[in-house]
């Protein structure tokens, strides 16, 4: 017998966890002498009260969809890819290499090539930890953490010593050519005659992120590979018994994960910064962990959680602008979401299970 009905497992548990995380965040705001209700109002108007706010919210959400999906795919294979940050950093390198290679005639060509570049570089950065996990049994969490730092050092080296244009002091590449400029949603809505999202960075990559959500759903629940990934994630011995190769599935799942994390760079590096800078990822790789946990590793859940974190990110920036609450409030909220939806899951689940058991008992007797 299932202890919890499906709807409670999928909706109620994460919802209570998120509410708990937000209640504690509100207490933190109270504790530093600010008004949580006012703070929420500022965040709501700042992030969702105008097309401008929405533009930024959606831009951040695009980043988090990619990194959230990356963590989610790995979770399905019961692998914890904490290296989204490094893979996205390397994805940025892939984007920069592609964008600076040619004078691109049209953005569609540049976008297609940059997507491949980002995915390949991201997957390549996940490949070594994946191979070490699959073949040598080195713990994926530790190796991906190490690869985050190695990636940061590598990018630092390349930007300072190799890719920096002559005469520039800034550790960044040259600007990407005009042909590699992605249309923003403002450009697109203007062309349709109803301009929206003026001077915000949200761009065509949003649709790629949405397509990625659908693609991941198809992959996990509608393909043979997805079935193998889920089977392996649930029980390795059972998967091996069914003829599924653990090495192959670990590699596939983590390569896809790395590719998705890398693709974040199309949005940030190609869409917004238009050149490769240090720390272009801004912690989005880590926010992906919170997004995937909150979204229960389901693409639709990831989509919703990415929107929520996009809102928090933009709202947090507004808060820092209008109040004395620093942006780091978002880091605290992120930590609490990870804590409650990830690590303290049982704290919510155990009492709920007891509650449902108590509710179910009377009609169980009636049936008898």
């Amino acid at each position: 017998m299932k202890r919890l009905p499906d709807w409670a497992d999928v909706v109620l548990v994460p919802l209570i966890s998120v509410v708990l995380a937000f209640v504690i965040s509100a207490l933190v705001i109270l504790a530093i002498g600010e008004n949580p209700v006012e703070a929420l109002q500022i965040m709501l108007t700042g992030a969702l009260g105008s097309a401008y706010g929405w533009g930024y919210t959606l831009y951040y959400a695009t980043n988090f969809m990619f990194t959230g999906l990356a963590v989610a795919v790995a979770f399905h294979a019961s692998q914890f890819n904490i290296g989204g940050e490094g893979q996205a950093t390397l994805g940025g390198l892939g984007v920069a290499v592609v964008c600076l290679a040619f004078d691109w005639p049209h953005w569609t060509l540049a976008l297609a090539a940059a997507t491949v570049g980002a995915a390949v570089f991201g997957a390549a950065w996940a490949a070594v930890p994946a191979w070490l996990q699959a073949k040598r049994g080195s713990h994926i969490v530790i190796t991906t953490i190490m690869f985050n730092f190695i990636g940061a050092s590598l990018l630092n080296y390349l930007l300072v010593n190799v890719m920096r244009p002559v005469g520039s002091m800034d550790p960044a590449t040259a600007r990407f050519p005009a042909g590699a400029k992605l249309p923003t949603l403002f450009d697109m809505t203007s062309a349709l005659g109803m301009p929206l999202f003026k001077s915000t960075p949200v761009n065509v990559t949003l649709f790629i992120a949405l397509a990625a959500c659908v693609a991941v759903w198809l992959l996990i629940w509608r393909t043979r590979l997805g079935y193998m990934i889920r089977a392996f994630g649930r029980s390795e011995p059972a998967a091996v018994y069914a003829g599924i190769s653990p090495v192959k599935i670990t590699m596939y799942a983590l390569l896809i994960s790395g590719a998705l994390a890398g693709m974040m760079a199309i949005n940030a590096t190609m869409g917004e910064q238009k050149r490769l800078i240090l720390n272009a990822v801004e912690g989005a790789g880590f926010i992906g962990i919170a997004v995937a946990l909150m979204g229960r590793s389901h693409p639709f859940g990831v989509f919703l959680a990415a929107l929520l974190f996009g809102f928090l990110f933009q709202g947090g920036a507004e808060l820092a602008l209008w109040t004395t609450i620093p942006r780091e409030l978002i880091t605290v909220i992120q930590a609490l979401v990870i804590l409650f939806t990830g690590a303290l899951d049982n704290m919510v689940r155990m009492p709920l299970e007891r509650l449902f058991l108590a509710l179910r008992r009377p009609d169980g007797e009636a049936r008898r």
Partner: protein
Amino acid sequence: MDYATILQILDSTVRLGTPLLLACLAGLFSERAGIFDIGLEGKMLMAGFAAAAIAAVSGSVWIGVAAGLCASLALALLHGLASITFRGNQLISGVAINFLASGLTVLIGQKWFALGGRTPSLEGAARFAPIELPFAEVLLPVPVAGPLYRELISGHSVLVYVAFAAVPAAWWVLYRSRFGLRLRAVGENPAAVDTAGISVVRMRYAAVAICGLLCGLAGAYLATGLSAGFVKEMTAGRGYIALAALIFAKWRPWYALGATMLFGLLEAIANRYQNIDLGAVVLPVQFMQALPYILTVVILAGFVGRAIPPRAGGEPYVKER
């Protein structure tokens, strides 16, 4: 490179290696009891902030250290609550703790001091002064050993000596005491310990608490010994380097001393020289910074001496299945 330069580099090796050593021993106790801890970084950061803030306010570094220990212990118990009592994922809990510390330190620091996440600079009794060991000046004329004694062995803050003393202490506790035997057993085979009538939960909480206290010392040293005050994100990945050192040391106290001092040496060299010219190749500073992580990956890959973690690490213990 002359003798004085070598001594200076070794001296900063000791200074930079000390927080790594304390954090590494912290992780050692936790992971030997079967609780993975990637939250070393967060606990150090929180302790550093609490120590610097309270030392600045109270004017006494010892009250500051006590506050740092309490802050780190609180996060350690949160980790224990999530991973022991509620049998949650220990890695996810560690990640959450790192972010919690990273956010809370700035949030509270900004509210309290309004210095952009910094604490006021510590002066006088609010920070650790170097300890001159006896006869440091008298023995200075003695060739080789005199400068070595004065520059390298004497003149550190008290927490450095505590950290070095903690190595044999940790070894003794883990390998020569009953508590240590049980602690290691809990990390290898908790069911056996349970059968012997010892509480797995209590042993693991004890290990997590020791980890919290040692991380507290590491953070306090960082903010009140190595520097004079707390700066936003001042741990700068040291918790992860300590984690790397722990694997490098294969979860053993004496090896931990070697590994952390090696990584401290790498940091000292990277701080002193920008690029290292080896004649044929020039090693860029970024390579030196990445070296601890690269070495750890190589060790993890098992090509150079295999690192085998405690067998029950990362798994919550359920009494009856």
